[in-house]
């Protein structure tokens, strides 16, 4: 009987303490991280993501990299308000966002989303079927002085000559689906001859494309 009285007394004291705010308090949710806007497109798969966190309440940072259906999470401990983490990108567009967590694992709200496109060195990005005005995106490993794109019919007649001067590693050569006289080209297949001039000389590439409108 004395035991029951002791337990009851302790419970009463604890309840009173909780009411008076003497019990251990719950930690505040950390503020969302803020990511710095990175450069895009890039030619290397490894990229450094920088930003800031709520240092007072953040214990660790979770960086999410999403490319298509592929998602990778990078976790790092946070020691200061500014952070700097290196992640790996997949070829093409990548979405990156972050969530901070406190010591108890409480997550913050989601950070802003940044977008980075990774193009492999020597990538050639253009549609095989042009349905509207588009462009030939040429990425070169070596700095190129000039890139030209000549379009021919299959019997060897030239349709248009497009050119962009460097020096640069990234060339975007627009085509408005018109020939050299300013007339709309017809639907059909064409030979695209891409010539890249750099310090090593001249590189020629050929691809079939089509115009369909």
């Amino acid at each position: 009987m004395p035991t029951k009285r002791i337990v009851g007394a302790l419970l009463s004291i604890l309840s009173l303490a909780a009411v008076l705010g003497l019990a251990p308090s719950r930690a505040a949710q950390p503020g969302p991280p803020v990511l710095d806007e990175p450069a895009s497109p890039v030619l290397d798969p490894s990229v450094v993501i920088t930003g800031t966190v709520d240092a007072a309440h953040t214990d660790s940072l979770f960086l999410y990299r999403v490319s298509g259906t592929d998602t990778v999470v990078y976790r790092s401990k946070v020691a200061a308000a500014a952070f700097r983490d290196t992640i790996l990108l997949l070829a093409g567009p990548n979405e990156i966002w972050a969530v901070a967590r406190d010591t108890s694992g409480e997550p913050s709200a989601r950070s802003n989303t940044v977008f980075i496109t990774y193009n492999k060195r020597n990538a050639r990005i253009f549609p095989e079927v042009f349905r509207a005005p588009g462009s030939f995106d040429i990425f070169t490993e070596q700095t190129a002085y000039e890139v030209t794109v000549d379009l021919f019919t299959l019997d060897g007649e030239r349709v248009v000559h497009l050119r962009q001067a460097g020096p640069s590693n990234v060339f975007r050569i627009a085509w408005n689906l018109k020939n050299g006289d300013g007339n709309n080209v017809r639907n059909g297949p064409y030979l695209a001859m891409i010539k890249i001039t750099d310090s090593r000389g001249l590189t020629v590439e050929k691809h079939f494309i089509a115009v369909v409108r």
Partner: protein
Amino acid sequence: MMRRRLALCLLIAGAVGAGLAARAGAGEFSRGGTFILPAWDARGAALGGAATILIRDERSAYWNPANLVFLTSARITAGTMEPVPGLNDRYSILCAGIALFEKRSGADTTSAARMGLAAPPGLPADTTGRRDSSLALALASSHDTTLIRKTWGFAVSATHLGLNLAQGSSWNESTIGLSAAFAPTRRTALGITVRMMKSSTGAADADSWGAAFDAGVIEQVTYHVWLAVTAKNILSHVRYPQRTDTLDVSWSLAFAYRGLFDRVSLECDMMLKYGVLNRLLTGVEIAVVPDLVFLLAGSDIRMSQGPRMIPSFGLTTAYRFAEISLAESFDPENAFGRQTRVSMSFLF
């Protein structure tokens, strides 16, 4: 004879004028399109495309349908090439032709004399005392195509182009052609080709179908000299899912001299397109061993879009019922480079 020559001059003037008027404000660059045939047979390609007069068999379904009347027997030809060497593409042709209804010789003896066709020296006179070289020589050889022997000529042709676009989608174009020729005299013939066209591709909303007409005329001016006019895609219609379109019209005016030193034939074609002189084609054929081995050479001079000359060379061997031709073209543009064509023909 004067009336014939006047008619011929009017024909030529009309052709040139029509060609020049083909496109008002025409430019120098192609508008491209579907169903642009990259080539035909190896023998014509070896002549640099100057085959409007010199090719006189079922292959004329493309070069000049009027020449089908020169066929001395039924023939079939198959050929193939890579339009762009190094890429996954192939173009193939198949054509067969026959000429019917032998022309009677009597009337043409008189007409030949009236034309005053100059006879090469040393030829014996015929029974009328006139030196009618055209009949005397041509009829002596059953395979000689100096004169038109038949009244009607017919041909069926088929082509197929297959290639892969940059990301792997397929692109295929096929045509079937029906050709007919009529020769009112031994020195004049007219012809027409109708082509039905169909494309099937791996791209959405890109398939098409259509039809086009070609026409041709050939005229013998003297024993050695021939003139011809052809028009390609003189009428055309191509239907796509979202639009319709036409093909570019091109006119060719050809001049040929056959039988120089009895072994050499020369042809020069002027091709008019977009209202301007688009190409100048020249070809020479040398009978190294008559009726057996021929050496061919030609050049295709593209007059616009940054002038360039495409030389070509070839070899044709014929024996009894078979003929094989090989042609090499050397395009100075890196895009096309060296093109090889092979074709085989069989006589029945």
